[in-house]
Structure formats: C-alpha cells, structure tokens
C-alpha cells in the first residue's frame, strides 16, 4: 500500500525534496552539535531544557489528540469522522516520531540511549514515558494501517483490531498525563508544581491537535481534492472551541492560585512570563500574543456567522495552534526555569544550530505525515 506514496505529481515531489533538504540541513547541524556538545545551543546551567524539550512536550499533545477522532467514531458511532479518523491516527504517528527525535537530539549522550532499557527505572517518569510513547506509536501504526488496508480491499476491518482501537483511547490520555508528570512532580519549580498540569496539558492538546487537523484538511482539499466533509470539520471546530476554553480557564486558575495566595515561588515564573521579572521580559510579548490570538480564535470559533466561512475557520484554527504552541512549547518549559532555584534570572534564546535542528525534526515529522497521508488519500480516492 505504501507504494501509493511513491507516485505523485511535480509539486508532490518538490515538497518531498524540500523536506529532505530541511532534514539534511538539520542533520548537518546535529553533527556539529555532536562534535561540540549541547553548548552549541542556547541552553546553559540555569536553563537546562529549551526548544527541544518544549517541542517534545507540545507534540505529545498533538499525538494524544487523535483520540478526539477515534473516540467519537468508534465509541459513539459518529459516522462523519469515518473519512478522517485515519488522518488523526497518522498525525499521531508523525507526532510521536517527532517527540522521540526531540528527546534524542536533547540528550547529552545519545550513544547511551539504550541505558534506559538496560537499567529500567520505574521510579523515574522517563521510563513510563518511553513505555507509553512507544506503545502509542505502535497502536496508531497498527490501527491506522489495518483499517486503511481493509478499506482498500473493500472489506470490513478484522475483528481483532477493535480491542486495539479501544485500548488506544485510554492510552492517548496516558501519554500526555505521564508527560505532564515529568514536570509536575518536581519540588522547587513553582510553575510546574500544580495538580492541574496534566488536565491543562490534555485540554490544550485537544484544542491544538484538532486545530491542526482543520488546517491540514483545508490543505489536503487544495492539493489533492480530498474533502473531509463539512460536518466533520464543523465538529472538529466545536472540539477546538471547548477544549481551548477549558485550557484558558485552567490558565486563569493558575493565575488565581499564584497571585491570590501570594506565595513567591508560585508567582515568580508567571511574573516573568507575563509581566517581567527583575527587568527581564524577553518572553512577555509572545505570551500576550498567545493570549490575544487565542482569544480572537475563540471568538471566531464561537460565532456561527464567522466560523461557517472556511477562510475564517482555517485562520482561527491556525491562530489557535500557534497560540497553544507558544503557551506550551515555549512559555511553559522555558518559564519553569525562570527564575532559577537560586532566584537568578537568566534568559534564553535558541541558537541558529538549535533552530535548524528543530526545523529538521519538524521536517522529518512532516515527511512521515506526507507519506502516510498520501497513501491514505490515494486509497480513499481510488475507492
């Protein structure tokens, strides 16, 4: 079936070439990083995780959001998602591939990756993250591929796939819960030490993932003529709307707890991100941009006259995706390190190498997504 990804028009191959070029540039930069060490990035003693771990965290959410298609379709027999449920599963596959790549490029000693398996350590959340992410990757490859193959042969999917599909639903919740626990269990990091971190992660994931799917569906319609269907897109927009409202509600709760309690350790990171701390405010414009475009997107998505126009809907979805990317992929991770446990403020900005490696990983994910989507859409269009 994958052979369908090996045929395409000129622009398809140009896009593939473009992605391969980005991957090559990323790989060359990664070689430099391997030679020099992680000091080639903007990270340092005070800000010891940066854009890599930020992207990792955000992409786990995108991966988890496939459940927003799988659950209504398979548990509630919501037929409108029938055409796109495989797109959700394949998006999860590409997103998990990106997650794993980001973790590996962030490692100081990638040659010792297998130590995680040689010395399995259940008290460390990393162990569980490796388990759930690999499991989720396998589940989505198998579920997506087997149902697509059945569709190609115009037969019902085999019965044994049902339990795996049902298993993928709680499994999706687990990947983002465990990822939140990576952060939420550490003393002395006020921004992360909050019981609603996992719920907030899930809320932002269920907004960002479907928002990306709306944008991708619009793109697919333009480049391949594949129509996801108005009802499915409309339902996705509703999911984005409510999930993002819950996310912003959670953010407001963080503000209340921190600033009403007046506990400095709770306040300082939020202070830095949104208002500035000790004269440092590099992320302040981005955080307010995130709030502004997120709020604008909520308005567009909640007014029927606006969201029914495709151009507005796609723009609002893209804005929501960017808003949540800033909030989680940038602010949440960097903000956790500012101020440092020693109450000093060191700011962070990624270096060129870091940006190129990050783009290389994004291109890798996009390549995986392109090949899988090309296969899926060829199957659906030949049927």
């Amino acid at each position: 079936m994958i052979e369908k990804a090996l045929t395409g028009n000129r622009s398809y191959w140009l896009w593939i070439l473009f992605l391969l070029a980005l991957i090559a540039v990323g790989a060359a930069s990664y070689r430099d990083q391997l030679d020099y060490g992680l000091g080639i990035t903007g990270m340092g003693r005070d800000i010891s995780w940066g854009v890599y771990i930020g992207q990792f965290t955000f992409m786990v959410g995108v991966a988890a959001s496939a459940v927003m298609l799988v659950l209504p379709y398979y548990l509630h027999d919501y037929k409108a998602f029938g055409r796109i449920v495989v797109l959700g599963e394949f998006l999860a596959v590409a997103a998990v591939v990106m997650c794993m790549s980001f973790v590996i490029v962030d490692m100081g000693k990638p040659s010792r990756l297998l130590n995680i398996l040689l010395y399995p350590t259940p008290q460390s959340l990393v162990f569980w993250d490796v388990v759930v992410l690999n499991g989720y990757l396998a589940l989505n490859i198998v579920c997506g591929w087997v149902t697509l193959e059945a569709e190609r042969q115009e037969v019902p999917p085999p019965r044994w796939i049902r339990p795996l599909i049902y298993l993928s639903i709680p499994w999706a919740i687990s990947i983002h819960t465990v990822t939140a626990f990576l952060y939420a269990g550490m003393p002395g990091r006020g921004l992360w030490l909050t019981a609603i971190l996992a719920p907030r992660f899930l809320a932002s994931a269920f907004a960002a993932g479907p928002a990306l799917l709306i944008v991708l569906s619009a793109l697919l319609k333009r480049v391949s003529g594949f129509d996801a269907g108005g009802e499915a897109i409309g339902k996705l927009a509703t999911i984005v709307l409510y999930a993002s409202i819950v996310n912003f509600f959670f953010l407001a709760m963080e503000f209340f707890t921190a600033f009403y309690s007046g506990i400095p350790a709770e306040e300082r990171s939020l202070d830095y991100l949104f208002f500035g701390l000790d004269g440092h405010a590099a992320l302040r414009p981005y955080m307010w941009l995130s709030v502004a475009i997120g709020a604008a997107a909520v308005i567009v998505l909640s007014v029927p006259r606006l969201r029914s126009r495709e151009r507005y809907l796609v723009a609002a979805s893209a804005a929501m995706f960017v808003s949540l990317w800033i909030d989680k992929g940038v602010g949440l991770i960097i903000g956790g390190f500012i101020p440092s446990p020693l109450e000093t403020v060191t700011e962070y900005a990624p270096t060129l190498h870091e940006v190129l490696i990050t783009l290389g990983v994004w291109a890798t994910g996009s390549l995986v997504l392109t090949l899988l989507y090309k296969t899926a859409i060829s199957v659906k269009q030949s049927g």
Partner: protein
Amino acid sequence: MDHDRRHFLIRAGSAALFGLGAAAGLPALAATRLLPAASGHGAGNAVRWGMLVDMTRCVEPCSSCIDACHSVHNVPHFDNPKDEIKWIWKMDYANAFPDSGQFASSRQTAAPVLALCNHCANPPCVRVCPVQATFKREDGIVEMDFHRCIGCRFCMAACPYGSRSFNWRDPRPFIEKYDYGYPTREAGVVEKCNFCSERLARGRQPACVEACKNRALVFGNLNDPGSELRRQLSSRVTLQRKPELGTQPSVFYAFERGHD
C-alpha cells in the same frame, strides 16, 4: 576505524533503533535493584555523612575550599556563565535562602554563603534519573556515575538548589592542571559535589574541609550522636536550605547573630 569496531557500531546502531520500538515489551525488573537509591531517609544506617557550614568562621575574601575542591576533581573553568561547572561556590544569602532573613543581622545576610550539593536524605534528583546514574549510597552520599549518565538533565530540573552542572562542551581543554587522582569527564554528562567519596574511602576528610584553615566546615557522621558535627548541631541554631521541600539536606548552616 578497524573492521570489528565498525561492525560493532553498525550492530549497536540497529539495535538502538529496534530497542526504541521494543521498549514497551521489556519486563520491568528494576524494583528490587533500586533499593539503595529509593529506600528512605538514611535512618537505620550506621553512617550518614553531613556537614555544617559555620559562617561565623568563614572569612572574605577566601576561596581555599573552592580552589581545593575544583583542583582535586578536575573541575574545568569556563568564562561563559552558560557553560559554568561548579561543585562548591559562594553566592548571596538572598539566593541561598530565598524569602528569608528579613530584618536579620547584616552579619548573617551580608557575607556570601557557601553552597554545594546538599546530599539530601530524600533527593529529588535520584528519584527522576531514568538510568540510576545518580544514586544514594548507604552512607547518604548522593553519587554520580559519569559512565552511565545519558545527559537528559532531568536531575538538574529536579534539584531545588542548583547544585548540578552539565558538561555543555568538552571540559578537558579547560582544566588548568590535571589531578590524576580523580577522573575527568566528557561532554554530555552531569556532575556535582560527591562529598569526596574517593577521599573518604581512603580515610581522609573532604578536600574543602581539609583546605579551610579557619575550620568553618565541620564534616561528620549525622547518625553518630557523639560526633563533633552532632555536638555542634545540637548546641547551636542551624538552618537547612529550603527545608519545606522535604528533601532533608545533610548540609547545615550556622550564622553569626547580634545587633549591627
């Protein structure tokens, strides 16, 4: 590259790719092996090493303890603070003890405070390490295995005292004078104070303690009620850093008091 080595690397590479996918299938067999790291708070053991930093005896400007430590452990010197590696260092009182010391005597708050790994009885860094490269020994020392560390820096995020440093680049060119009594490190691993476990094994005091001529650093066994350290701790008012986090530091501080 010779043939065997090349062969090995190719095999290891494909094993790594395969292993990543197979992670979910591996049995979790570590629970029992974790015991030294995970079990409790050092109670019941004969030895729990600890230290009192007696700031009434620490004078400015003096860096004998820092120099001694960094020289015997081959700690590199970087000018860029981003790359900095430090095992023991001085910092302002307000940074060591945030949100405390309001209206305290300037004798307490004015002088820079010595900071090092607290060798917590309940260490968050040990809890989060995915490969047990940092672990708590029977004698309470929180130790590092530089050869197992994968460089994920989870321990740095977990340490509430900023006591851990990462080798952001090859440290060896930045070591002023090699000391062959202790290994150097490579780029990509975390390091920190080890209470001079290599010297304790030979019956010597930690390098910083030995180097301090004013005897401002009192090192000893916290589980021995008769030790000099315990005698000092019971007869004076002392502080631990961020005790509210439940980490139970083994490093204590005594300050000079009195009206300015």
